[in-house]
């Protein structure tokens, strides 16, 4: 069991090192592969972070441009996805600060910028069927509840439960302490549950 874990860790390390080498060379084939590999995860994170699909798509492109420009800064001792989320997060904060001088926390009270659930719809539209409609409605309900909670809680909940990051990785991405991440996760989940309960009632 330990040997398997050791092999797995080694494989992960060598993959991270290969990515770091490729990024230093600005290898376009590697970047193509990474863009495809992380397309859904990164876009989902950006949509829930910015609360706007169109803006998230712009930020998606800018994130990869920044990855290209600053790839030499990637440290292979971290997972690539952790670094990628941190790059995306910084870009989003920079953009939002430039657009209007508020902090990320300031978005908490900013109802104007709360996106409509329809903006979070999947790009892919499938043939209408009862089950699909039901799923769609449920997805809208959850999206609406998710975007209704303060952005720092939303971010932590998305990174943990949608993207499957470990608590330490979330702390690295957000630059918050581990204790803060834990408390944001707890509060975020509670807020989400109460909003969903409220929506059902």
């Amino acid at each position, binding site marked *: 069991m330990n040997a398997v874990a050791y092999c797995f860790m080694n494989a992960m390390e060598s993959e991270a090192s290969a990515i770091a080498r490729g990024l230093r060379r600005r290898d376009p084939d590697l970047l*193509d592969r990474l863009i495809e590999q992380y397309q859904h995860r990164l876009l989902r994170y950006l949509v829930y972070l910015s609360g706007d699909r169109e803006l998230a798509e712009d930020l998606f492109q800018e994130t990869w441009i920044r990855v290209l420009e600053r790839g030499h800064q990637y440290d292979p001792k971290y997972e690539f996805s952790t670094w990628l989320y941190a790059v995306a997060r910084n870009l989003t904060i920079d953009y939002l600060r430039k657009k209007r001088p508020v902090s990320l926390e300031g978005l908490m009270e900013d109802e104007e910028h709360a996106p409509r659930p329809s903006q979070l719809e999947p790009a892919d539209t499938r043939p209408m069927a009862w089950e699909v409609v039901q799923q769609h409605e449920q997805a809208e309900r959850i999206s609406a509840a998710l975007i209704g909670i303060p952005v720092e809680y939303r971010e932590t909940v998305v990174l943990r439960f949608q993207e499957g990051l470990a608590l330490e990785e979330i702390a690295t991405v957000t630059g918050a302490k581990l204790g803060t991440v834990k408390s944001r996760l707890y509060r975020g989940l509670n807020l989400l549950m109460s909003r969903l309960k409220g929506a059902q009632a």
Partner: protein
Amino acid sequence: MTRDRHDEARELIALGEGLADAKQAWLRAHLDECEACRNYAEAADGVVRALRSLPLAADSRLVRATQMRVRFHAGRLRESRERLWLVGMACLGVGLSATLTVPLLWRLFAWMGAWAGVSSWVWQAGFAFFWIAPTLVVSAVLLARGTHLSNSHLGGNGEKQWR
């Protein structure tokens, strides 16, 4: 059972997977005896499953556009790095040749000054002009046609800009 134990249990539930064995065992024991926390755990599990099932995907046009943009930008960065390398090499070459030729040129100007019978400040001024003239000419040419910095990737190249 105090309120703190319930809070602790709910905090552990919110952390999701990856708890230490001892904490997991404590949580299991607590959930066996506390219905409220068991309900909370079920509700949390439902929310997490719902979150994971959210269908949000990038469309293929966005991916292709991003890949093309990244390739284009990589090409520009490569060009700019090559230019920078050429400028660096040219500077190095000029520096080396200057180090080698200055003493010889100085002697040549001194000899020409003596041969023409002019005072020393005249041939020294000639030497200074000869030394500065190429730099002045190159600067004037670069100013006239623009350096690589004026058409860099920082803007105005047709790439998508921030809204």
